[in-house]
């Protein structure tokens, strides 16, 4: 009880420190508004880049109804309207990156098909963006199959019975990519500020010498670290809720499905775990410059390998063991389940427990390094 009170009162001081720092407040506001919008707009969530707006060029040497039909089959938003080029423009165009795919339709293509001859098409692909290539090639072959099938069925009119694949997309029926982008972006900024705010709060207190003042009072390093976490965490969770309500749901019109209390519990635990990482980095670093380097080393994997950019399952197995230690990985899983799939506690409890456990581990490491770091700075 005494301890809780101490942590509470120490934290009120932290709250004052952050809210009276105008520059910091401005950065927090920008991070949770503008950066979410800017980041969310293009940040297309899992899948390794989007398969929209792909650029394709067509070398149409056939100039038939079929070849034009194929060209018309490349529709937005998957493809930008195709450009028509000549065969010798393929190489330079791909070199410049003017388009990523070039489809050559040879002369006599339509008549070959009509006469049951095998028609040879050439698809030239800029494979430097390997993540997009597979998606693009699949979609192009689908367009081809559809258009050719339509052409053949129309001419052959040999309608036969068969199975149709009826697909429905759950949780995001329109397949709107602008849903998950803002969420991923919001989580990135939440992670960044949580680490920076708590870590910097400790480093600053150490550089100013006020930490020594605390350490000779009946206050333990546990109390000091905990106070920093709850105070900074409170500010961030408020910013998070405001951003989720007014920016993500409001301005960006992303519909969210799940339970708000459950989301808040998970977010609070996530902030605890991430703040513990911030404290840990601050106890490891001897100076702000070193802290900045350690921050980059931690934040880039958090941002890129938590599943927000490409699915965790796609990573090599060794790496998956490493990224398992990123609380953000479990949190993203949790947040997507709750926000879009309306999952309940019975579904997401493993993630919640993992996040809490990781937080405890990082927090314990920080505490064991705490005293050492103060001695080193003295």
């Amino acid at each position, binding site marked *: 009880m005494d301890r809780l009170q101490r942590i509470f009162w120490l934290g009120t001081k932290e709250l004052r420190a952050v809210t009276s720092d105008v520059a910091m407040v401005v950065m927090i506001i920008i991070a949770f508004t503008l950066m979410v919008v800017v980041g969310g707009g293009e940040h297309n969530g899992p899948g390794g880049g989007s398969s929209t*707006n792909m650029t394709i060029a067509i070398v149409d040497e056939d100039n038939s109804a079929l070849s034009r039909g194929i060209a018309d089959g490349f529709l937005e938003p998957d493809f930008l309207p195709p450009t028509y080029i000549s065969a010798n423009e393929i190489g330079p165009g791909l070199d410049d990156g003017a388009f990523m795919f070039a489809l050559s339709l040879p002369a006599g293509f339509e008549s070959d098909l009509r006469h049951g001859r095998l028609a040879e098409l050439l698809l030239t692909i800029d494979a430097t963006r390997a993540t997009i290539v597979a998606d693009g090639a699949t979609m192009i072959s689908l367009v081809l199959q559809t258009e050719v099938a339509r052409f053949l069925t129309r001419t052959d009119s040999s309608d036969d019975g068969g199975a149709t694949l009826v697909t429905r997309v759950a949780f995001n029926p329109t397949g709107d990519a602008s849903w998950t982008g803002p969420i991923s972006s919001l989580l990135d900024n939440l992670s960044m500020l949580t680490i920076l705010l708590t870590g910097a709060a400790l480093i600053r207190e150490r550089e100013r010498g006020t930490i020594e003042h605390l350490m000779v009072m009946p206050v333990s390093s546990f109390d000091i670290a905990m106070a920093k976490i709850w105070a900074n965490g409170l500010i961030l969770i408020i910013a998070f809720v405001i951003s989720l309500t007014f920016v993500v749901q409001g301005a960006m019109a992303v519909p969210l499905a799940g339970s708000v209390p459950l989301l808040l519990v998970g977010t609070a635990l996530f902030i605890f775990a991430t703040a513990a990482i911030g404290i840990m980095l601050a106890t490891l670093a001897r100076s702000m410059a070193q802290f900045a380097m350690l921050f980059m080393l931690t934040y880039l994997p958090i941002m890129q390998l938590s599943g927000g950019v490409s699915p965790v399952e796609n990573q090599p197995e060794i790496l998956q063991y490493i990224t398992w230690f990123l609380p953000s990985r479990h949190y993203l899983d949790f947040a997507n389940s709750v926000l879009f799939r309306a999952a309940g506690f019975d579904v997401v409890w493993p993630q919640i427990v993992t996040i809490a456990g990781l937080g405890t581990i990082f927090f314990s490491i920080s505490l064991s390094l705490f005293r050492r770091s103060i001695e080193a700075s003295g």
Partner: protein
Amino acid sequence: MNTGVSSGGQDAVVRISGLSQRYKSVVALDAVTLDLPPGQIVGLLGPDGVGKSTLLDLIAGARVMQDGTLNVLGGSMSDAAHRRRIGPRIAYMPQGLGKNLYQTLSVHENLTFFGQLFGQGKAEREARIKRLTRATGLDPFVDRPAGKLSGGMKQKLGLCCSLLHDPDLLILDEPTTGVDPLSRRQFWELIDAIRAERTGMSVLVSTAYMDEADGFDWLVAMDAGRVIGTGTAAELQARTGAATLEEAFVRLLPDSSGDVSGPLEIPPLTDDGGAPAITARGLTKRFGDFTAVSDVSFDIRPGEIFGFLGSNGCGKTTTMKMLTGLLPASEGEALLFGKPVDAHDMATRHRVGFMSQAFSLYGELTVSENLSLHARLFKLEKRKAHSRIDLMRDRFGLGPYMDKRAGALPLGMRQRLSLAVAVLHEPEVLILDEPTSGVDPVARDQFWELLIELSRGDRVTIFISTHFMNEAIRCDRISLMHAGRVLISDAPEQIIQQSGHDNLEAAFIHYIEAASGNGAAGDPEALALGAVASDAGSSDRLGRFSLKRLLALSHRETLEVLRDPIRLAFAVFGSAILLVVLSFGMGSEDAAAEFTVLDSDQTPASRAYVAALDASPDLTEVASVLTLDALRDQLVAGKVDAGVEIPAGFGLDMALGRDTDIFTLIDGSNVNRGETVLASLEEAHTAWLADQQRQTYHVREHTVVGVDVSARFLYNPNVEIMMAMGPSVPAILLMLFPAILMAVSVAREKEVGTIINFYVTPTNKVEFLLGKQIPYVALAVFNFLLLTLIVTIGLDVPLKGSFLTLMAGSALFGFASTGFGLIVSSMVKNQVAAVTVASLLSVLPTVTYSGLTQPLSTMSPTGQTIGALWPASYYLSLSVGSYTKGLGLEYLWTDLVGLAVFGPVFLAIATVFLKKQER
């Protein structure tokens, strides 16, 4: 009170009229009018916070003037051209031990740098350095880093750096505060020798030591931003009828009652023979190979005032930290109340009060909030807390300030608040680390009255450290400390008597000399070697832009970077590790989608359909379900990516050639994943359909749909993801790491104080920024080489194009990324802000808008604009073009041109934001 006394004289070196300066609501200077006589030592007298440093900053041209006129060396300081002209004639040594020195650089490197700033050639510089280091006694230590010098030696080095270019006006801000008495004496002897040799030089000194001011030619006494008296020491004493200068100063204070409180009455200590409250036995502390405190022992009786007298860095603070448990002792032991000090013993902490050297209260909180916070942390019971806070308020005279923010209090008040906080919980032992440094004499006496009351009235044991002789003399017993050792420990009168001198200062010097010989005594005779003539063309070399000066700045920055190997290692190896981790992590092939099946048909046909889907390399079937709800649950739990429902009668329908529908439900919460899964399912379904048709119509295999698409994958024939990621990831790392390193660097100079060298030397903005930038660009290029090695050898991605083109692009990219860091750094005030702003603004455009995962051409117009305005997108295109497309300069020159534009533009923006004077 007389606010504007002038010394008259047409040739005044500094003429000030109506000069005012404000920081937000605090008035630092209040309409100061003053003329300073030339060729003399002029002393600026007064405690901390009265505006001395602000006045000196303005005279040196380090700060932007707000109001009034200020002429220095015959021209107005508000005129930038005049400042540039006279800059080389002024030398400024700011307050704080070695504040403008580079701590990791050696004595010689520091001096070389300052010589280079003033355009001195090597021969001239070396001659000057030799002369000054010999005169100051620094010559045996020229290779020692400045940070490892004692306080006295740091100040001597600072003086050398100032004198290197023969200034006409030497400005010293509290040069001897916190320096041991021997070094202090040597310092003033040196100044005298220099003035004897350079007769025209004017010296302007601020000081808090009254005894020191006695020796100056002319004095300016200041209080609360105003001049309260000028004249020689004798004149001031005569005018106020005071016996000492300290008394004269106190009488000049506007709110002084006129009568000086007599010497403090200290009732004798009654020894009740109790056990010692604090005991130290052979305390020793080592940091690495440096011994900060060596074999210190003492016993402090209950109620005693025990003093530690010594210079900054002599081990006083370290000893106190060992007593409070903040630092573990390397050897020996410390006892509080007869028990060994235990860092985790909360009970003992309740019995001790500690006031550290730095002002350690929370500036954002008000006085009463600070008091109640501490009452709560010490678990004072509510009623008790109230009565104690009220008592403290009355006893320490805090009444009028209770609702003011602690950070806005005058220094004397802050010290009282610190003491109030330290004794709030009625500790039995008080440990005070230099509690009165910078406090004016009146406030200091009041502070001591409180201490005496606590000691004699409440029998609180007080352990206090100080570097003021007149404070030490009031202690019951003192220890003289020097270089980590206790020289002697006794009652002050005994120490003086034993030394055979007549005051404590002389006694202290006596013991220092006895312990360590003459120390680093200088040889002022060396100055007789004569002044070194300047090289020809001195007006020339101080012109607007100097490549030499730029290179001097680069050289210095390079040395500093190399001397922090940990930061360097984090940057270099950190980016190497990230390259590998991110390349493997971000760029792996899509894992097969997992689907579950609700097979309501359960016929061979339906099982064949499922098998056909499962046969696709992109799809894997996991446990089938029996109900639609179960299927949905699997999706909600995220266990599968899709669910396939085969309706009853499917097999029959197929056999009869009837149309039938297969339903699939795809998890769309991960949009792109959903799209991939959808495409895979459709592809597998189409393949199955084609197979069905083939079996039905027995058509030729290839002509099922009539087309054969042969896909040619350019640049990356096997579509290996590593071929895509290997060239891309370095673009992120080479953008972010140099930018953040750079952002911290200028902000750090602002925080540490070395930025003053930029303010007061002829360095211009471009020299400063570009000079600092070059080492980081070199680091970026080195990093590029390392990353290239890892990509080509480690990740096995061949560099097919021109290495030289890519290398040139990397150097340009280095300029661009560090240029961004410079912009951030020139805008913010501290390192925390620099890191936050730089990360927040650079990570997003680099990772999302430079075409890393998604080509720029496929983005929204906003995205494309952001990408076009960010250098990483050009570098990414260059890198991918060079590695995988195998292109050379003829194709990639557009990217190079794009990259080349960013460096100069960013540098120009940073130049606009960087100020040549402090505000």
